């Protein structure tokens, strides 16, 4: 399979909230991934950093910040910003270099130190920035958008607050044994119901936290993997970073309005769905082939939307799928066996990389305490601001 790259190593710095410099988390993750791969840093020919706009100047130049911390080695570098999909875009940059034959082995790193409370726009007076304007003119924090999707789902598909709570209970149970998760205890439906409403109908425990954390991968050509004696590595066979198709008729952060569908019909697949299906097409698989999926559960309700977007069920079928137990560990296709954002909280530029770390450990059969039996094919998907999203298919 010439279009695949090997995942030689995966590493993370645990998620939490310490307020230390993000480079520290990225460095720890990078060293863990290099050790896992059995590759020395000076061997790395290309380093891709996942960037963020929040953790200050070095966050914009993540690739170089991590390369400097590891010790300048002359490796080529790039930094990728794509909001929540930054990590996948960095993986894609490394993959392209490898598949083009321009390098044999690359390091991908993302890390964040997230502020307390709501994410907020970059500071200063920025009346040309839609992200600044939605806070200024609407007071629309991220949970406001998550809540709009959740309420819509209740109205159109009959989702209930109990369904949303059941997603949290499931993911909390999955994350209990994950040493890298920030929250590792069971949560009951009553605890979700009793937590304060942040944006009706979503409670505090329906919404993912903002976290510190770091994640890294060592990627290589299949030849390089073989030269290191790794004959059957986890492989990335599909990766999509597609943009929406006009008209984008689903309200998205940080938009004030959707595109109009007056002059052009909405695309056959809405944006989130198109992200996953582009990766399926590239990998030559379909949703029926999945052993597991890591989806971006910014809210409990959004996890249900993802079930449909990635094709686990028809639109409107997510509640039944959840209630059947199919998406819990032990079910047909466990979703977020890592515990998902519910247990991690979001460390934006690290998160898409962390998802692929989980796929890697699951596909190796090394996800202790949360292992999906005989995992062969995994999907990781996310969506971020400004029309970004990503999907990664990994196989063993």
């Amino acid at each position: 399979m010439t279009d695949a790259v090997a995942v030689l190593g995966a590493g993370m710095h645990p998620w939490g909230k310490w307020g230390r410099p993000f480079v520290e988390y990225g460095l720890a993750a990078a060293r863990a991934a290099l050790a896992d791969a059995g590759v020395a840093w000076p061997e790395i020919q290309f380093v891709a950093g996942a960037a963020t706009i929040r953790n200050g100047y070095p966050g914009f130049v993540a690739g170089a910040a991590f390369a400097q911390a590891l010790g300048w080695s002359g490796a080529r570098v790039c930094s990728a910003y794509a909001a929540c999909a930054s990590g996948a875009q960095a993986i894609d940059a490394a993959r392209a270099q490898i598949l083009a034959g321009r390098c044999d082995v690359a390091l991908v790193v993302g890390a964040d130190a997230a502020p307390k409370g709501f994410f907020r726009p970059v500071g200063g007076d920025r009346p040309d920035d839609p992200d600044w304007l939605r806070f200024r003119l609407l007071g629309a924090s991220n949970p406001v958008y998550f809540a709009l999707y959740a309420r819509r789902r209740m109205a159109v598909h009959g989702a209930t607050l109990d369904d949303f709570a059941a997603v949290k209970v499931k993911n909390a149970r999955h994350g209990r044994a994950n040493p890298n998760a920030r929250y590792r205890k069971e949560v009951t439906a009553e605890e979700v119901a009793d937590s304060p409403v942040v944006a009706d109908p979503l409670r505090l425990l329906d919404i993912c936290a903002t976290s510190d954390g770091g994640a890294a991968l060592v990627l290589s050509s299949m030849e390089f993997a073989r030269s290191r004696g790794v004959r059957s590595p986890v492989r990335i066979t599909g990766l999509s970073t597609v943009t929406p198709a006009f008209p984008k008729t689903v309200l998205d952060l940080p938009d004030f309005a959707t595109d109009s569908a007056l002059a052009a019909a909405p695309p056959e697949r809405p944006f989130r769905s198109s992200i996953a299906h582009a990766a399926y097409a590239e990998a030559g698989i379909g949703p029926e082939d999945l052993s597991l999926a890591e989806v971006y559960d910014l809210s409990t309700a959004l996890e249900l939307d993802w079930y449909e977007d990635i094709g686990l069920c028809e639109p409107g079928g997510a509640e039944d799928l959840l209630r059947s137990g199919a998406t819990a560990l032990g079910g047909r296709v466990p979703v977020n066996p890592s515990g998902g954002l519910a247990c991690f909280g979001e460390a934006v530029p690290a998160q898409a990389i962390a998802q692929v770390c989980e796929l890697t450990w699951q596909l190796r059969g090394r996800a202790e305490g949360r292992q999906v039996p005989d995992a062969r094919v995994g999907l990781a998907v996310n969506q971020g601001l400004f029309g970004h999203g990503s999907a990664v298919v990994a196989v063993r």
Partner: protein
Amino acid sequence: MSTTKQRRPAVEGWFAVRDGAVRLLGTRCTVCGTPYFPRNDLACRNPRCAAPKDGSELEEHALSPRGRIWSYTDARYRPPPPYVAADPFRPFAIAAVELEAERMVVLGQVVPDVTADDLAVGMEVELTEGVLYEDEEAQYTVWMWRPGARAEEDA
């Protein structure tokens, strides 16, 4: 609350009173008909539109002042700056409203005396103007949705 304060829009050119009704001001492509809000003066973004795409195809367009709620929520906690919150903070509702004529969904705060419990998906709402925040000099206004459309304005 002072009533002698000046009222000023919190943002220039996004909404106006036209023929006694508050209207959102956007633009519209004269070639394919696609409306835009907030206004787009750069180029029509419909990739299949044959307009010159130099901005000359875009004209000002006042959007429909009425629509139906696509979804709604509220903000129970003080949003971070640059939102200017009253002290003490008062939760407010937000609605995403589907405009039938424009075939698009537009966000807006809901007038202060209406809570999320008063709203429902599919409910008819109309546009009005409300105070977003105030300082010593002036009240700064923004477009807001309120339930119910007046029958005499139905055309």
